[in-house]
């Protein structure tokens, strides 16, 4: 592996200082399940690794008066056990549950999955659907960015040198607003999404009053599909509205063909997943 210099700062100020004054390429470490593998390939190179897990609050997911704040270092295993979060954001929890094996879940983090910016990252469409806002630490303070603007390309995120993701925050929705995430994989476990769809719908008196639809693994980045949401808002979430939303997902997709599926197949599947995910979120909204 690459030559590493390791620091585990115990305060945010110290972390920002390390990141903004680093002379060599620097990586932020939380779960490490992507980062450690990526660093194995690098031979004659140096990296500064800043392990942020020892900074207070990084491994937590706490409710404030207005928000749920998900820390960058909370493992998926910790996250998926949280029934308080499951009750409000079931789609986010099911996406986190799909990332990797039991072993990987023990280390991997949702914020890491987001920063890694894989087109097929399962958490990203679910984070977008749930309306997540990235809280970013910068050398001069903090800035915010919606999750849908955070991933800017394959393996590329919007963090500038010296910045790191402090967490993702969510406004808790009404009880009649619920999310869902579905992905398709050839195998039931240990596989990477061929397509994934995260949705959130609000239902009042049988009518959809708000919706968010995001697609994954069918474009260089996960995408917020506003046309799909437009097809749902004002409808009774009937078959015609679902079909229109599915078609909007298909139209927005620009997938590649690879060993897990052809572009044509992915476009078809993303429309089907969209309809199914909406039906699940709709049912969840009705149950509350």
């Amino acid at each position, binding site marked *: 592996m690459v030559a590493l210099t390791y620091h*585990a700062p115990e305060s945010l100020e110290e972390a920002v200082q390390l990141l903004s004054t680093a002379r060599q390429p620097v990586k932020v470490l939380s779960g*490490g399940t992507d980062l*450690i593998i990526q660093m*194995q390939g690098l031979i004659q190179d140096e990296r500064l690794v800043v392990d942020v*897990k020892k900074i207070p609050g990084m491994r937590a997911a706490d409710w404030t008066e207005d928000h749920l704040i998900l820390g960058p270092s909370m493992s998926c295993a910790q996250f998926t056990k949280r029934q308080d979060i499951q009750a409000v954001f079931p789609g986010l929890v099911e996406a986190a549950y799909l990332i990797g*094996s*039991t*072993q990987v879940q023990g280390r991997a983090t949702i914020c890491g999955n987001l920063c890694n910016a894989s087109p097929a990252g399962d958490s990203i469409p679910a984070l977008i659907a749930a309306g997540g806002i990235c809280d970013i630490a910068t050398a001069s303070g903090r800035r915010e960015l919606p999750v849908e603007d955070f991933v800017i390309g394959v393996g590329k995120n919007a963090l500038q040198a010296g910045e790191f993701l402090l967490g993702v925050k969510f406004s808790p929705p009404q009880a009649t607003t619920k999310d869902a995430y579905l992905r398709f994989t050839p195998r039931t476990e240990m596989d990477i999404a061929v397509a994934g769809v995260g949705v959130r719908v609000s239902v009042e008196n049988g009518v959809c009053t708000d919706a968010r639809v995001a697609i994954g693994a069918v474009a260089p980045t996960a995408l917020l599909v506003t046309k799909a949401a437009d097809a749902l808002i004002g409808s009774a979430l009937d078959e015609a509205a679902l079909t229109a939303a599915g078609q909007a997902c298909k139209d927005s997709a620009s997938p590649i063909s690879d060993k897990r599926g052809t572009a044509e197949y992915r476009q078809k599947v993303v429309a089907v997943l969209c309809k199914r995910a909406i039906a699940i979120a709709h049912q969840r909204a009705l149950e509350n």
Partner: protein
Amino acid sequence: MARLHVESKINGETQEFLCDASQSLLDVLRDELGLTGTKEGCGTGDCGACSVLVDGRLVCSCLMLGVEASGKNVETIEGIAGDEGLHPLQNAFLENAALQCGICTPGFIVASKALLEKNPNPDESTIRYWLAGNLCRCTGYDKIIRAVQDAAEKMSHPA
């Protein structure tokens, strides 16, 4: 580059070791501490052969830096058998012929023990999903699943 001094609890005993920042916990266990029971299969977190528990959580030791084990409680296959002999899971793997080449076995036993501690009576589907991150290229898995069921039965109804 200066080596890092790390103190961890390994199988119940406090141990100090020196490691490079780039060494994985797996490298540290095998190369620095001589605990070669934990195996390297893929080195990329796909096969589960290097499974260990860190503060009670099942993880791939290849996906964690050795230095990240500082202050942590690490349990490996070497810590599974007690003073009285093999753990019921180890006996069940032998009795059910749940191993052939044996490379995956330490990982399966560590992972299965973590499951049975959480859920002493898992059904077959639960066992299969829990162990989806452990690959075995010899047995076809059925014997492993039966061994875990057998151990669960014996542990909940000791003779």
